[in-house]
């Protein structure tokens, strides 16, 4: 079967002081090719850990990861990653950053230039091709990061709060861009966010995770991502189901946060 499959993934961090943190417990998921899934959850519930395991930066303590019928061990170009910030290469121009993946593969220059030019058009940075990345604004830098990831043509794109460091307006534009890229490229995307609205807008599927141990608490299938492609996202937010869903999920996360706070208060 093709697609991404997580089977009973558990992750335990053994701390040097002898105690251990169960960051993930028996997380199972199946993603079909081209699915867009957003992940929500209170801080510390294991979202980043989960993404790092899928990316191959961490090895799970138990469970199995399968992508397109082969098991995942370690990082690979088939799974691209977009970080919140700080992952661009300052010593390279925008063009070289975007062309990094193809260069590593030893792709011929002409072919690479075509891909880079196309992607810079898509993210609207053609005029900034020769600039150093530190000369760009935060939003532009994230567009470079997206383009760099796409240039490598991965099967799965993993995003850990990719828009977290942007201002509200830039963020809205970037959300539209993510939807557009998803539709155009048909990539499987997992996107972690702290914003419930963003999770609703950018998730065909949405999972809410619960902490201690990290696990999937609830899963939704949503129409908003499909509606949002090429549309004004502010209009999508006026959808009659949008408000109630947002309130429901907010209350759910709020309860979890309350519980965590209560527990830490008891402990101290």
């Amino acid at each position, binding site marked *: 079967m093709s697609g991404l499959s997580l089977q009973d993934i558990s992750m335990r961090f053994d701390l040097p002081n002898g105690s251990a943190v169960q960051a993930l417990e028996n997380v199972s998921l199946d993603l079909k090719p081209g699915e867009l899934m957003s992940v929500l959850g209170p801080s510390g519930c294991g979202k980043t850990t989960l993404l790092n395991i899928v990316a191959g930066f961490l090895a799970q303590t138990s469970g199995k990861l399968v992508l397109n019928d082969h098991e995942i061990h370690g990082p690979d170009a088939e799974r691209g990653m977009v970080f919140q910030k700080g*992952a661009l290469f300052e010593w390279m121009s925008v063009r070289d950053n975007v062309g990094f993946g193809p260069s590593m593969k030893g792709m011929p220059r002409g072919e690479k230039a075509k891909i880079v030019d196309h992607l810079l058009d898509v993210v609207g940075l053609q005029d900034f091709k020769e600039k150093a990345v530190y000369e760009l604004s935060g939003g532009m830098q994230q567009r470079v990061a997206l383009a760099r990831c796409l240039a490598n043509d991965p099967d799965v794109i993993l995003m850990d709060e990719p828009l977290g460091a942007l201002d509200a307006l830039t963020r809205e534009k970037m959300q539209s861009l993510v939807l557009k890229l998803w539709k155009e490229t048909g990539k499987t995307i997992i996107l972690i966010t702290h914003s419930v609205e963003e999770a609703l807008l950018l998730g065909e599927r949405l999972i809410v995770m619960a902490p201690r141990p990290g696990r999937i608490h609830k899963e939704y299938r949503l129409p908003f991502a499909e509606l949002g492609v090429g549309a004004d996202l502010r209009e999508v937010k006026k959808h009659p189901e949008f408000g109630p869903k947002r309130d429901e999920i907010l209350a759910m996360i709020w309860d979890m946060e309350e519980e965590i706070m209560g527990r830490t208060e008891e402990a101290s």
Partner: protein
Amino acid sequence: MTGLFVLFIYVGIFVGSFFVVTKVIDRATAKDFTSLKTVTFGDESAVRPNRIAGVLSILTIFLIWGMFTGSSLLPKFLHAPGPFVGTLEFTYTAEADGQRDDGTVTVVIYPRDSETEAPEVDPGDGFAKNDSSAIAKWRTGLVRVDANDEIKKKDGAEVVAINGQPIARGETVKIENGTVTLSDKGTPNLAPYRGWQMEPLYLPAPETVWSRTLQVVSEGFRSFTLWEHLGYSLFRVIAGFLLGALVGIPLGYAMGLSDWFRGWFDPIVEFMRPVPPLALIPLVIIWFGIGETGKIILLFLAALWIMAIASRSGVSGVNISKVHAAYSLGASKWQIMRHVIVPNSLPEIFTGARVAMGVCWGTVVAAELVAAEQGAGMMIMVASRFQNTDIVILGIILIGVIGFGIDMLMRWAERLLVPWKGKA
């Protein structure tokens, strides 16, 4: 005493020019946006060096230097009072066999470069005859007043007064333009007024240093030209630094990338880091002698640890997201080394290189002070042995200028080669 006086003048110029420049001149000049900030005290970014202050600071140093060395570059009225030059007179009263007689002493105080004979004087009458003497300026001199007297000291004559003021052995009497002290053996010792200026032996005037510079430039010093001396020092620094970087950078990378290397070399590096290179000079001389080998090895050691530590922290300072991103983009270990770790560590390595060059420059001068045939340090050491203070000062200025130049050059290279420094 003079030191305190210099400090007062310096502080006076500092405070005075501050008020003149900031209250009068700055009012009249245009304002930029930092002057719109209301909070400037405590805002480091609002503090920029005042250019006028910089120029005045340098001028003040030369002004004070000139004032206290009687420089011919300054108008006379700005000079600090100089030592007395000219003719000076005092009378002494000798006592022998219960009778007293006066004699006059005439002393010529002559400038160093025009040696002068003691003037002829009329011996006068009585048993104490008139005397004369000549002393170079800045110097003191014993005047053997009894040498021509009819009753000499060994016959029981004794000086009992100077200019009519009674005096005993070990005591001092003030006269015009100087003091007279009766030595323990009973001979008057004349100390002409010294003034506030520094003796050229201690601090030559700026123009003396300048003319000596021209002389050293054209004639060289100790059978090497000035450029050869400086060139030798620079060559040693560059050779030692390059060797240190050549070994230190790969070592630092290995320590940043491998547990085994880190574990093996950490104790050595951490132990050698706090040992000042100067402390190694004696051992290096014992092992390698005073030739070029020893000096280059010393500078190699000075640069090695600095470069190793800089590149080690350059490697460990890489943002893990960048490495992860590169892996996800399909880079191999070697490609990550070449395209991520090396460029990411370059800013740190450059900072290390700047420090290392500074340390090497200081160390080479010190090593040449100890033993060398040529070099900037050797120049000032040999010059000081022959009391050529002007060459010592010339050498110090050149060492400072070159050290500064090296640093500027490194900064320039840094801006050119690692423009992304501090931008991550």
